[in-house]
């Protein structure tokens, strides 16, 4: 009946190309011997050295695990690294950093996988969804950093055309900014889609002879500014501070009509500069109610733009790891750190 044995797979596997068997056996003996020899000579064994850094005393209350979202920009990483450093070394917490985009990080409040976001740029829609509607997150106050968003030119341009920093003169220079992408108009370079942008409306409402071109990422934006300065190629684009790149190249802000409260309430009719931003921290409701000393630390954490820029510079330019950078700053600023710690 079952005479299909010709096709049996086991046989197929057995039919292998000949290899010198004795050579193989010899090799086995050799390596095994060498291995035994080595193990006789020793070398440090795994688990022999006791891990010395068991949670050093500091906080009376147990801290447990803190899940810190790390959004993908260096300034944020500076905040997160310093908070993590203090929480681990001085409060004995276990900090888990999770690298996430903002949207995903906010979702983490709902799923219970993120305890804190430590640099938030406005995001009123997400605040409404997760703080007001779902009630899974609460604000933990400002970080002390002031966010500025605006239109910038490379420094060489401000030197060569001093009046370019006034928006009223932008049309005069529009032809300088022509590129292959701008349809014969001047090019205004927009950045990452995560940014707040009113630029298309601004161009229209200020009657500027420009076209908004979407660079699509911060990488693209920074590379363009860098090349602009190096090649003396004109550029007008969207940028913001605090940002580590500004310590490499001090971009010059163009003055748009000044911001007044409510001038940006109708998105289609905006004709004024961006508002100043107070960056803040958001924590999950669960974390806020836990009484963990880490929550107190996050809530008390504030520092200045200069502080953040310094740590960001350690990371971005001096190529330190975030942990090294944070450790250096914490060691240099014991007084500021002390003010964040829970009383007692």
């Amino acid at each position, binding site marked *: 009946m*079952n005479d299909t044995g010709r096709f049996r797979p086991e046989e*197929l596997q057995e039919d292998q190309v000949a290899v010198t068997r004795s050579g193989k056996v010899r090799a086995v003996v050799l*390596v095994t011997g060498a291995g035994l020899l080595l193990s006789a000579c020793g070398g440090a064994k795994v688990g022999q050295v006791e891990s010395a850094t068991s949670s050093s005393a500091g906080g009376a209350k147990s801290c447990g695990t803190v899940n810190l979202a790390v959004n993908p920009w260096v300034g944020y990483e500076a905040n997160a690294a310093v908070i993590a450093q203090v929480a681990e070394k001085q409060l004995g917490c276990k900090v888990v950093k999770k690298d*996430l985009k903002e949207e995903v990080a906010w979702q983490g409040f709902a799923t219970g996988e993120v305890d804190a976001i430590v640099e938030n740029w406005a*995001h009123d829609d997400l605040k409404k969804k997760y703080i007001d509607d779902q009630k899974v997150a609460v604000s933990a106050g400002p970080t002390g950093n002031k966010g500025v968003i605006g239109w910038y030119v490379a420094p060489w341009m401000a030197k060569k055309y001093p009046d370019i920093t006034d928006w009223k003169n932008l049309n005069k220079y529009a032809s300088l900014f022509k590129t292959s992408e701008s349809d014969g108009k001047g090019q205004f370079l927009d950045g990452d889609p995560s940014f707040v942008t009113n630029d298309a409306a601004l161009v229209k409402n200020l009657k500027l002879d420009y076209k908004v071109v979407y660079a699509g990422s911060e990488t693209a934006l920074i590379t363009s500014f860098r090349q602009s300065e190096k090649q003396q190629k004109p550029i007008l684009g969207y940028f913001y501070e605090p940002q580590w790149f500004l310590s490499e190249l001090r971009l010059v802000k163009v003055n748009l009509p000044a911001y007044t409260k409510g001038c940006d309430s109708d998105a289609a009719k905006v004709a004024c500069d961006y508002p100043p931003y107070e960056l803040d921290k958001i924590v999950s409701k669960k974390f806020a109610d836990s009484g963990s000393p880490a929550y107190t630390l996050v809530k008390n954490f504030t520092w200045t733009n200069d502080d953040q820029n310094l740590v960001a510079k350690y990371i971005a330019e001096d190529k330190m790891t975030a942990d090294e950078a944070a450790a250096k700053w914490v060691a240099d600023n014991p007084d500021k750190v002390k003010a964040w710690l829970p009383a007692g």
Partner: protein
Amino acid sequence: MTGRGEVVQSRGTVAMKPAKESQAKEGRVSAVAARVAARLPARGYLVVATLAVWVLGWALLRGRDTLALGGAELTPLHGGLNTGMDAIDDSRNSNPFFLYFINYIRLFIDEAVRFVQALISQPSFDRPVPVLGWLGVAGLATAIALLYGNRKVALLTAAGFLSFGVLGLWQESMDTLALTLTAVVLSLAVGIPLGVWAGLSDRFHRLVTPVLDFMQTMPTFVYLAPLTLFFLIGPASATVATMIYAIPPAIRITALGIRQVSPETLEAGTSMGATPAQALRLVRLPMAKQTIIVGVNQTIMAALSMATIAALIDAPGLGQTVLKALQTLDVGTAFNAGLAIVIMAVVLDRVTSAASRRVEVARRAGRLRTARGRRVEVAGVLGVAAVLGYLSYTYIWAAEFPADANLGPYVRRAADAASQWVQDSLVTYTDALKNLLTNALLNPFEKLLTGSPWWLVAAVAVVVILLVGSVRAALVATVGLLVLVLLGLWQDSMVTLASTLVATVLVMLLGMVVGVWMGRSDRVDTLLRPVLDAGQTMPAFVYLVPILGLFGPTRFTAIIAAVVFAAPVAIKLVAEGIRGVSATTVEAATSAGASAWQLISKVQLPMARSAVTLATSQGLIYVLSMVVVGGLVGAGALGYDVVAGFSQHQLRGKGLAAGLAIVVLGIVLDRVTRAATERADAAAHGGLHQR
């Protein structure tokens, strides 16, 4: 990539013609056109005439019915998609589907990944190091390569694994490997049975093909954020994202293998009384084994290509290193990690390819050695691996890769210097090239596509497809184009289409020139192949900074990125085709006194035509898969919409719509190239004699 709250949002109301009416009209048009086309033989002239009508129509009707939609504008459909996604979010904690189904899958996958990580990458079981240290992992991998491949790939494997340590990225590499392997194993566990089913059942095959198309062309960015709602932040989400992309090749190629088994062989089995189950187990599966291993190979490559993107939702490993480096535009560090990914891909590719060849050789060669010989070999090799594993379990020197042997900083500095030099010294030329190609080729084409009324573009497209393809393909195109209109993203789709087609033309130019060169010379092949592998597997994020420096944030930069990624495939396929031309034919032509140029243009290329068309359709799909990366470097349009949807809450719906538009473009372009190929083949059978 900083995030800042709200976006300018104005409800864009887009004028949409009643779809039904125009659909019926176009159906009639296409029927008439088909009849006309059937009668008239001079298709070439008709195509030219149609295009002339288009240009004329553009000149007369420019700017009308172009369906433009601004960057932050939404259509009601986009708003509706947003609301739908919010509804899913909200029901997450109460819906039994989540509570009893998704959550268990998540737990299972999480545990599986954590287990592999515990074995090779993360401190585990109260030890400061993983179970297997570098010596053990490298030894085991080499042993596997030796047992299933050959000595050459075993050597390559050993060198590859050591290089992870030498680059200073041992742990990151092992994290990537752990995630990739888990995703691959799970993908195969799902994909091979489904592939067998698709191989046996025509109906299931027809059903599953569009789903697979969808899974492969839908940009990952679209489903990445929603996935974390289902599977939470962690290894499970990253694994599932990887699986969505990696399962289709497993299913497709397995089905192909099952289908390829010759009917005669099957009949022989059946006549001997084998039941269908026996026929499958004893005939089909063994005969399809080699093809299935090719499927495994493609699954691994697909899984590895997700390493960087999965890092956006906290997948551990090399992808993290690349993304972190990108934040500070640190090309060197990104390159270093990218290099490790390339090495891993090359090693895994060569080992699985060798394994597949070995199966074939074994099948052909028949019995050369006794089972005992094989057993001794297996025992010996595994014995050595076990000893190495034990050492790496016990001793720190074998567990942690020696830090002194770290060449990473040198690689980083060299890459940095190279990137800097390229940006500084070549920028004048690249700028001129960019302006030339953009103004001469891209801009006019894009103006024609975006400036004409949408119905004119659609009508021209359908007529041209009728002429060069088939009625069926024209129908697919009609439906697809209407879907683009309904999605509210007509103009963005046309911008993306223009760049996609220009990129494909460049890919094919490169593919023909380099592919022919490679196909004619083995030395060139050996020299170029690693470069092509690198182009295919190096994460695009690594070379974004230098090409941005050279070309600025423009559509052309996006085209270059797409060419870097897609050209290797086209080149390899063309080379394969050239090499497939029989030696006797080439000899005959040479002895008849054909010059090298005549040989290429009159003999080799025409005879490799099916390979060239395959290269075109693959090149197209690869180009299309880079649309989203293009959105990150200034391409705007659909790619930007998808990226924006990933970053902005209000734009999620639009991002989803843009993802769907990319899928539609992919499916339409694929069907059209296929139909055109079939027609060309049929035509060629009358004239030129095919092999």
